């Protein structure tokens, strides 16, 4: 991508008055030497896989380990019964995001966004919002272009893996991408989208990657629901005019530095945190001694 950072992106948007999806699509088309409509077609195809992964996730059973599976459906059934703590949009955002990760834990096909362990928030929140507002696929996929563009800008500066940056670099980034896309889909300005992203990312900083038994299940699956809520919060705040005091590019830099400072035990080694609690150890021992 010729764009280097979020500051450049906002300068480009201000100068030309172009929408974020327009800027990103043109960049990608130029980079790949392909027509724009062909590139957009790929986003539509990815969106179809994402929606299908939510559907399969809601319908599926337990993971191989038996630790997760079925929670997304629980939330949806509870919600349809009218017992809602935070409104239908939030309930669906949470449930759909968890559904994708439940499908991932069964090694079903998903779209990494930006990673597999953080694949829930982008499709989960975008689908819930599309249903709430009646957006068609063509419109929602424009949001996916924005999410992808934001992810690419972050990935240009930070390695997106739990092993290098902890969970902040996976689910923090996934939620941040979703927040920018939601803000865009709801008619926010480019500046609002970037602030939504910055607000969301900064509120996941320091998040450890401490998966029980080295699986992508506990806490990863349910956490996708929790960080989905952060994405909706980020969009809500930014659309209302709340701005991040620390600019997005600096938030990304802070994330990288925090990732470097984190001990190895909290970076996808299952050597610390939840993985090393008495229950976490017991689950690991049972899982690997029996099999």
């Amino acid at each position: 991508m010729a764009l280097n950072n979020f500051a450049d992106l906002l300068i480009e948007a201000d100068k030309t008055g172009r929408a974020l999806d327009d800027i990103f699509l043109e960049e990608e088309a130029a980079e790949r030497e392909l027509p724009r409509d062909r590139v957009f077609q790929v986003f539509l195809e990815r969106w179809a896989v994402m929606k299908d992964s939510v559907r399969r996730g809601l319908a599926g059973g337990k993971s191989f380990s038996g630790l997760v599976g079925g929670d997304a459906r629980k939330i949806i059934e509870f919600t349809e019964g009218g017992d809602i703590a935070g409104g239908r949009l939030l309930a669906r955002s949470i449930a759909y995001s968890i559904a994708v990760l439940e499908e991932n834990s069964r090694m079903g096909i998903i779209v990494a966004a930006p990673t597999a362990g953080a694949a829930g928030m982008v499709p989960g929140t975008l689908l819930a919002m599309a249903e709430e507002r009646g957006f068609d696929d063509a419109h929602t996929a424009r949001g996916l272009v924005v999410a992808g563009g934001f992810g690419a800008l972050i990935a240009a500066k930070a390695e997106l893996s739990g092993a290098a940056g902890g969970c902040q670099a996976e689910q923090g980034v996934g939620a941040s991408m979703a927040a920018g896309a939601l803000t865009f889909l709801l008619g926010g300005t480019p500046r609002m989208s970037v602030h939504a992203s910055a607000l969301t990312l900064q509120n996941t900083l320091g998040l450890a990657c401490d998966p029980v038994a080295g699986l992508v299940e506990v806490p990863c699956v349910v956490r996708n629901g929790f960080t989905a809520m952060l994405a909706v919060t980020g969009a809500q705040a930014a659309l209302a005019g709340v701005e991040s005091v620390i600019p997005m590019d600096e938030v990304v830099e802070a994330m990288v530095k925090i990732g470097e400072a984190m001990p190895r035990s909290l970076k996808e080694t299952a050597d610390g945190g939840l993985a090393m609690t008495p229950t976490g150890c017991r689950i690991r021992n049972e899982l690997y001694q029996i099999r």
Partner: protein
Amino acid sequence: MVGPSSSHTAGACRLSRVARLLLEEEPVEARFELHSAFAKTMRGHGTDRALVAGALGMEVDDPRLKDALDLARQRGLGFVLKPKNMGPEAHPNSVAIHLKGPTRAISVLGASIGGGMIEIREVDGFPVSLSARDPCLLLFYEDRPGVVMRASEIIARRGINIASMEVLRRGKGDEAFMRIDLDAPLPPEDVDAMKEMPGVRRVHVLDRVAGGAPIT
């Protein structure tokens, strides 16, 4: 892709697939040495299945990936996975892959750097820098004058731009190695012409192994 982890499943599969493509024949033996985070969460993250799947030539979205260990046994591929401490400087998601086929063997050292992206750090002992996102050529040849020029001439005649390039050798007049990243894939007849160049031992083609599915 098939999960559960983009770095520990998809990235691992791609690293191993690169080794399989470089071997250019069905492997009968595979040995994987896993460093740090790769070794620690190997089973939980499906890294074992993904590495074996890649050695069998699978792509990251192949639904058979989860059955790769059984498939390997059916196809007669023997495999060993073991942890190996590569030191504090090595990337936590590093793996050394050693594949053996009926007629040849290859060793690849690489790291999975997040979101399914990879970096190959070593091929048969040559320290390389390869992301496999662009169409790429790898040449092994005898260190002698003119090879770089003749190779780039073939590419230039086809009107293809060279994005980046590295040239290494074990010693003066010894075995040499060239990596050429291209903006577009080189047609097979040109690759054959390269194989015919004096001093060239082997030419490998990697077409966007880690660049997502090529869009046409």
